[in-house]
């Protein structure tokens, strides 16, 4: 267990160092997120009443598309530079690989989401600084990363990776999207645990099931 965790943290540290040196993924993904949020302004002509009902949906569609784009890159560098074989040969448990990559994805997504909060405030006058909203967002992001990391390891090797990842990921992540959007709406309406609680529970249950299941089947994905 300890070995696994240490190996996972090593892989994670490598990804973070790589990102800090190149700053490639974060900025391209963030730019995309801003463009999506900006496009919605013109697609909906948001009025305050409209934002109250579709605001959480806009936020989550922007985030989930950004997540797909970001997760597509998780294994892309490893694939292009052949370093995936190196990782595969490393004498560490397969779960460590999954866990390390998962941590990188969560970090990337949480950073992008946090940096998007001011944009939503400015573009839609939508204040998302709400404890319950943030709790839901963090829990849902873990679930997104749990499923997305697994599927991106599959998609990266295929010819149609840009299509395949969303095709596999979005249907499976539907409960997360429903929970996150509905829970967020409850939270922004000023509901506490009574309104938000069951959605949070659903999302956390999803996280647990898919973290365990994905780390178990990950070795079948990587196997040569």
């Amino acid at each position, binding site marked *: 267990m300890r070995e696994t965790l240490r190996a996972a943290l090593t892989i994670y540290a490598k990804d973070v160092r790589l990102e800090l040196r190149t700053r490639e993924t974060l900025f391209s993904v963030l730019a995309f997120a801003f463009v999506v949020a900006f496009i919605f302004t013109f697609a909906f002509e948001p009025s305050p009443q409209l934002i109250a009902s579709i605001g959480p949906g806009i936020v989550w569609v922007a985030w989930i598309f950004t997540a797909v784009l970001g997760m597509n890159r998780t294994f892309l560098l490893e694939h292009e530079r052949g370093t995936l074989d190196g990782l595969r040969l490393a004498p560490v448990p397969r779960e460590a690989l999954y866990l390390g990559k998962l941590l990188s994805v969560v970090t990337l997504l949480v950073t992008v989401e946090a940096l998007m909060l001011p944009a939503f405030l400015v573009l839609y006058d939508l204040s998302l600084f709400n404890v319950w909203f943030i709790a839901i967002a963090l829990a849902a992001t873990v679930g997104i990363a749990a*499923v997305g990391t*697994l*599927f991106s390891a*599959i998609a990266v*090797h*295929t*010819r*149609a990776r840009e*299509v*395949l990842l969303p*095709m*596999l990921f*979005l*249907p*499976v992540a*539907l*409960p997360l999207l*429903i*929970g996150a959007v*509905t829970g967020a709406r409850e939270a922004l309406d000023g509901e506490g645990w009574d309104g938000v609680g*069951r*959605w949070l529970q*659903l999302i956390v*249950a*999803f996280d647990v*099931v*898919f973290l365990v*299941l*994905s780390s178990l*089947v990950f070795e*079948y*994905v990587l*196997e040569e």
Partner: protein
Amino acid sequence: MTGAWRLGLLLVTGVLVLIDMYLIFAYAPTERSMGIVQRLFYFHVPVILTSWLAFALAAASSVWYLVKRERVCDRLAYASAEVGVVFFTVAIITGAVWAKPVWGTWWVWDANGTLTFVLWLIFIGYLMVRAYAPDAERGRRWSAVTAIIGAATVPFVYMAADWWGGLHPERVTGPGAQGSLESEMFVTLMFSFVTFIVLFTALIAERYALRSDEDTIEELRLAAA
């Protein structure tokens, strides 16, 4: 299953389908409030249950394949996915055609409808993984992973969509049934169930046989090279 068995199964299926058509369109009475469109129900309900069965079969054989690595399981999963996509498509179309005159809308995102739609998409994803995988071996493994992850999402989709709200007719037969059916309707429905399950089995057997032949050809080609 040998060719003779499959031919026999196809013949039985053909006869059952003919009898079923008679029962659906001539024997069963027209429902009073919904009218003729209610006859779609004899297609929709058996097809949807068979589609779910296809998904369960694909998921179970995928687990089996990853554990045992026997090609038999993979062929079974692949055949279920292929036939499942067709059955899901039919279920979704019949459901929509029925819902429009009865509910006034083509589609309602209740738990059953949402789950069906999601499983349909996952099956399409399953077939795409196989089609785009760099080699057949990885295609088999990755599609198995897809089916397993897809199966794990079922309770979550169902619960999320259920809480999210929707309407679907109460179940009319089986455990937890609310209403009751005319006996002719009940007989027709039950016969439809049998027919569609036999049809499903026959289609799976055909696709399975095709996959075995493909594998044999591949082995021969490898042996010749």
